[in-house]
């Protein structure tokens, strides 16, 4: 598991990339990746390198959504593998996130 993040030049969008197993061990790193970006309102979570995600990862995504402003924020989840997409679908996370 590794997490990297990249802030767009204008500071408006933060892209967080997760690789490997996205589970509880990523908790601190994932939070650190977006903390201190209070001015950012748009977030992208890139899961192209994530092989797996468990329920604590779903919880981390919810925390990011809160951080982004809840209903008023925007969090996109992109590049999901079919397995990861299945988990997000069962959880009905498309009701809360934009998933591509």
């Amino acid at each position, binding site marked *: 598991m590794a997490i990297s993040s990249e802030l767009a030049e204008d500071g408006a969008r933060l892209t967080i990339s997760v690789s490997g197993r996205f589970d509880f061990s990523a908790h601190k790193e994932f939070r650190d990746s977006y903390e201190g970006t209070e001015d950012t309102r748009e977030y992208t979570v890139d899961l192209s390198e994530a092989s797996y995600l468990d329920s604590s990862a779903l*919880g981390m995504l919810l925390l990011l959504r809160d951080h982004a402003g809840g209903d008023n924020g925007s969090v996109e989840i992109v590049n999901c593998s079919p397995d990861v997409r299945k988990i997000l679908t*069962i959880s009905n996370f498309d009701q809360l996130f934009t998933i591509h």
Partner: protein
Amino acid sequence: MSDLPTRILVADDNATDRLLLSSIVKKEGYEVISAVDGADALCKFDECVPDVVLLDAMMPKLDGFEVAKIIRKRTVGSFVPIVFLTSLTEADELARCLDAGGDDFLSKPYNKIILKAKLNALDRMRALHTEVADQRDQISRHHAYLLAEQEAAKAVFDNVAHSGQLHAPYIKQLISPLAVFNGDVVLAAHDPGGDLYVLLGDFTGHGLTAAIGAMPLADTFYGMTAKGFSAQDILREANRKLHAVLPAGYFCCATLLRLNFRKGCVEYWNGGLPAGVLLRTRDGSTAELTSTHLALGILDDRRFDAATQVFEINEGDKLLLCTDGVVEARNPEGEDFGYDTLRRIAELAPHDRVFEAVRDAVYGHLGSRASDDDLTLVEVSVLDPAQFESRPVAAHDDSPGGPKDWSLTYELGARSLAVFNPLPLLQHILMEAPHLRPCAGEIYTVLSELYSNALEHGVMGLDSSLKNSADGFSRYYEARAAALENLQGFVRFEMQSAGDENGGTLTVRVKDSGAGFDYPKDIEQWRNPRSGARAYHGRGLVLLGELCESVRYRDPGNEVEVVFRWEVHQ
């Protein structure tokens, strides 16, 4: 470390060497104990419990190597440095000192400065060792304490989380804990009318979060089921409570089932769990109870969606629910068990061995591996309603108080009908009369039949004959959900009761705003299951006929009066 001077045992058979060393050590502020040979050294060691041992390698009786080995055996777990005193210079011999359990060696003749430096270094080592040992003891005490706490908490959690009607013969379950706590919750209970409610929940994380969340969930589930609240009311309240108590990012994936064996339907809600499987005996077909909602505890009440779906069920059908631990169970090659496998095995298994077949397949798949997640599997069998007589036993009342003769009128307008279920409230009022309590189940069934007829066939104008086909069955419930959105009309209850400790009557009149229907004129038709009434007007009317002394419709069929009589046999 203690403030006492470090106590040092000096063992040397050479009196001159011994005195010389003792005096140097004493001058450095240490307390000295002397021994004249190996045996004496062991004796003094046991007697005085020194902190450091300075040991001549060559001594009569027992040499230093033997003494060192014995001391090491006696001081397992604590750290007593042993320094060999030796005039040996061969590298092999010096190495032997350390192999025998020595921590260092000191060459004769003694060099005061080196001796002092070594004693200081040993003090530092001892201090470090004591600190580490203290921390180790502290951690192990703490760990033992936590384990004891968890054992106790687990006992509480298991009582709360895996309770109710779970041991009824028509429910089979497998609950395997990942850690001391299992994040999975299985609850089952009957409502006053005998409907069976089953809830399977999977909390994020394990341990305390799950345990704490399970309490309000179980309370809500059991409390509200017993009072006759609808599945949607229970879900809404459970979500509201979990949203309030769980920290952000924590939630509970759940499936709630409400099985009405008499009407042959299962109402379900699934938020975030793998789809349940409905296996039909009649034609071997299956249906999936898919997740269409977010898990409990994520959304606030305003955005929460408690909409349920309904499937037809018949005697012998099986409902299989599981948590993602089953679907994601990994074999030693790292492959998931998978939902498709689960479904295929469930479909192929002999009908009375579905649960066992799936359970054995999951364990077979796991092999020797412990599961990564909680494994919870629940199977509910659909019974013949005639055999199913598990009504809750209402508490027999021994208080003579409560209303004995009373009446009430309660009318719900369209806006209330759309969102409010009046049955728990009415049941609550009725149960204030102590002599009615033993009949709680029958009375609730009568009320709910009357109410659903008035609402669905009266106000909404739905045709119950739709339900006679499997396809029509789901169309019926879709139409019902659509009708709720745009409701016009009313339902009015009038109740009257008179009675005493020997028995009495309860009269319930229900009128609705509908156009009425062509009701059977002869009540015998309802009581006779072979008559046309059953097909036309559903099993509800037959049941009313069985439970009540009289059932009378008034023209044009939008008003019905039933008389329920009870007798108390002393």
